[in-house]
């Protein structure tokens, strides 16, 4: 869910960073990539400060709307999104940078507006980057621990993710079997995702 939710934002940010020239580009670049270098626990703590009941967004935006994010599954989604976002943006950006600028100019002179050009030229030609970014983010999300445990806690059936559950089972004396089972589930999911990625990539090469 975090990957799907981040996709439109990731694409938009990658588009801006690839095709728009503006002051403050470095600031945007740093902001986007910060979660990549910060320890996940720090990211989680900052999110807690921001989205918590006394936080800037929590107090002034979420509370008036009656929304409570912290220690809910939505917080886990947000934490995973923030931590994996730079990986997604980087991959999509790399995909976009390989598109010849004159293809975009050709599309515009042929009567396509910028949105039309994004949909009919940039999206299909950066699809590999989008796919790679999504897989990377999904994989990162699967292993996410630090930020999630801070903003979402470890509530079984509500916010407990696979890594959190494994942590809990490993900490309890009789949890080895369950921990191993969840490890196998993780491996299975990872293998399925990687095989799907490889299959889609090969299929696209054949279409080219």
């Amino acid at each position: 869910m975090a990957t799907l939710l981040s996709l439109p934002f990731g694409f938009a940010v990658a588009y801006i960073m690839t095709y728009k020239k503006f002051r403050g580009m470095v600031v945007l670049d740093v902001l986007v990539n910060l979660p990549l270098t910060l320890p996940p626990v720090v990211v989680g703590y900052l999110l807690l400060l921001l989205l918590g009941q006394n936080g800037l967004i929590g107090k002034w935006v979420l509370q008036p709307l009656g929304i409570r994010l912290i220690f809910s599954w939505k917080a886990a989604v947000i934490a995973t999104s923030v931590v994996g976002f730079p990986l997604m943006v980087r991959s999509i950006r790399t995909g976009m940078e390989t598109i010849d600028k004159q293809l975009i100019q050709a599309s515009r002179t042929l009567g396509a507006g910028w949105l039309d050009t994004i949909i009919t030229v940039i999206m299909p030609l950066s699809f590999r980057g989008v796919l790679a970014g999504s897989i990377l983010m999904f994989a990162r999300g699967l292993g996410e621990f630090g930020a999630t445990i801070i903003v979402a806690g470890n509530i079984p059936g509500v916010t407990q993710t696979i890594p959190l559950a494994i942590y809990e089972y490993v900490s309890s004396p009789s949890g080895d079997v369950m921990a191993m089972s969840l490890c196998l589930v993780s491996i299975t999911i990872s293998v399925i995702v990687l095989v799907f990625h490889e299959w889609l990539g090969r299929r696209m090469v054949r279409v080219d």
Partner: protein
Amino acid sequence: MELNFAVQKKLDKFFLDMDFVIKGDRIGIFGPSGCGKSTLVGLIAGLHHPDRGHILINGQAVFDSTEKVNIPVEHRRIGMVFQRPHLFPHLSVKANLLYGYKRCAPGERKITLENLLDVLQIGDLLHRGVNNLSGGEKQRVAIGRAVLSNPRMLILDEPLSALDDSLKFQIIPFLKKSCEVFSIPYLFISHSLTEMRIMTERVLNVVDGRVSGQMTAEELAREVMGKGPTPYVNLLHLNRPRRRDGMSAYRWGDSEFLISGDGRDEALYELSSTDIILFKRHPEAISARNLLKCHVSEMFEMGNRVGVVLMCGGEKLVAVIMKETVNDMDIKEGVEVYAAIKATAFRELG
């Protein structure tokens, strides 16, 4: 078409400052690499934004900084053919061709896919992927894609410079024919004098971001060749040869050229002005296979040499001789001369 252009644009260290009005349906923009030709056409097409000034096409402003007019690139209806084909790699040939057509207002769709396929001879390529086309086929599809967008004008931005010589002269007829058949005026950008002479009537000479002059393609050829070490070259469009003694005999005005080798039905030949030898009287015996009786219609200076325009049965040929030769032979406008040309002096282009 009338193009009224007065624009200033700064790009890093380059400054473009041009002010001109040019009329014609086959306009050339000539100049060396880096002189601002592509920036100029980018400004006209709307791909670059001028700092100030105006751009009017047939009296209609597509950009005017004082009137705050700036028609977006997609609404200017200016088709572009680039140096490389730049076909959309994820689309078929047909989808590439129809990309602009589908985005053209129904009322403006005068050129249809069927008309275009005939002219460009690309009917059998329609369902192929663009990565399975040869270089020449790709460029023909790129021309077709721009033409089918039914533009009010075409910008041909060095469309031949990435092609080798033989391919270049295969593409030129398609380029000319599609613009002629569908009556599309064009701007042709190139640093090749030969291409300029084949493709255009009037030419803007661009140097260092400024227009240094406006002239016919022929005047440009005389000016450039007069300054450089390369002598003036005659371009001859010849067709339907007869075979004679291992040579090709092409009709040229009232005369005939004998050219060594098997010439093509439709051929373009180069003939250097220094390969033409002038005689004041008919030489009794001469080894050259072509001897033409001509009148001198015009003479012009080319550095330390003189260009002599010869009228031969309604056709023009330029010979270049030394200044001293003009006095020695007493050559002046109106006099009759004989021009001798070897059959091997002609070089077929393409």
